[in-house]
């Protein structure tokens, strides 16, 4: 039986050096994210793809699920570089198990991770609430839209580009940002995050 207290021992101080458990958990979150991407990819109807290809920029909205890995890593580990590292590893896993875009996903991961990382850096790695998560998801979305518009749709009209970017950023903020935040809250309640600050904030006496 576990008993937890509401104030964590030695809390308040921000530690920036990564412990081994930080590295491995961030990497594992990324691996699971990569696996989930792959499953989702297989399941999402291949026949539907030509239809989304014909949308005038609205396909940005389905980009959300690709954007959650970095925010999730950042919210759990809470150290500099977490979002970037998690996204890069998730992208590498995707590339190694052969999702659609192969190693172009590496570039994707780098840019999405940087977008989320930037937001976490702007709040000095001190705030981890739902708003920061939302903004980090949006940041990842910004990075992703810029990349996609350069790589996949460079010849597109301005109107398409604007709609696409807007869709990506919104879905990044909602699914990538708020979604990750909700996942982390749920994980904390299961006690899986007991070695992390995120887990110690949610306390329950059993």
């Amino acid at each position, binding site marked *: 039986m576990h008993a937890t207290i509401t104030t964590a021992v030695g809390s308040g101080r921000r530690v920036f050096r990564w412990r081994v458990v930080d590295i*491995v958990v961030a990497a594992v979150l990324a691996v699971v994210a990569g696996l*989930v991407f792959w499953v989702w990819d297989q399941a999402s109807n291949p026949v539907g*793809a030509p239809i989304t290809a014909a949308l*005038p920029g609205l396909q940005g909205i389905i980009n959300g699920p690709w954007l959650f890995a970095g925010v999730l890593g950042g919210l759990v580990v809470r150290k500099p570089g977490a979002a970037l590292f998690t996204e890069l590893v998730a992208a590498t896993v995707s590339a190694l198990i052969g999702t659609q875009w*192969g190693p172009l996903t590496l570039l994707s991961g780098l840019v999405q991770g940087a977008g989320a990382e930037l937001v976490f850096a702007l709040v000095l790695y001190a705030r981890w609430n739902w708003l920061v998560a939302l903004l980090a998801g949006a940041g990842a979305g910004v990075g992703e839209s810029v990349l996609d518009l350069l790589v996949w749709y460079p010849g597109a009209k301005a109107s398409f580009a604007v709609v696409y970017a807007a869709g990506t950023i919104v879905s990044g903020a909602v699914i990538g940002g708020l979604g990750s935040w909700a996942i982390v809250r*749920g994980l904390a309640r299961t006690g899986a995050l007991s070695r992390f600050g995120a887990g110690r904030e949610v306390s329950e006496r059993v």
Partner: protein
Amino acid sequence: MTFTQPLRSTRLASVNPVAKLGAASTIAIVLLASIDQVSAGVALVVECVLLGFLRFPLGAALLRVSPILVAAVLAGLTTLLYGQSSGRVYAHWWLVEVSDGSIRLAIATALRILAVGIPAVLLFLTVDPTDLADSLAQVLRLPARFVLGALAAFRLLGLFAEDWRALGYARRARGIAGRGAVRRSLGQAFTLFVLSIRRASSLATAMEARGFGSSARRTWARPSRFTARDWLVLGIGVLVAALAVAVSVLTGSWRFVIG
């Protein structure tokens, strides 16, 4: 999981992963800088010739490359419908506008994706994760703790796939497999996260128990060196990129992607 097994039978398998990464990245950066049919087309042709020389197992290669073929065609389709229009307009309906300009852009987009993506996918096909980690840490000098931590986590992938299957069976046994496939998948994904974090904490302790993460200076049991062959591969990558750019500039079709 067989899709994580790299192809060892090709000659590319023993080339240093960083060299392959460097070659693919060079081609990518250079080709992505412009949107025109010539640079992409030239690069694609040269790549196919080179791949022919290397005698790749065609079946496996086609299988791995097919998703990017599809993706390239679809991106081309989108550009065809929504590309910047110029020249004669063939169809105009709501936001869709098919024109000479958009056709050219569509072809260029598709070729570009293929020229960047095909070599990258096939090069990655021959990379062994442990070799990749060794070379990233020894050649590129990325921090060893992060690279090896990621490698160890990657090894758990097969385990997670088994977990996923078991979770599926369990949900059927609990009576909730019938309704809401999306909701069920989300629930399964969440549980997989919980299980995986537990395994990760356990793995981290096991790694630390073997001295990982301590301040002692690390040695390497498997040296990763950059040999002449690796420089050759990297050089070929640079050459292909240079050739593509040169031909494109000389024929005047180079067009910067921004602006």
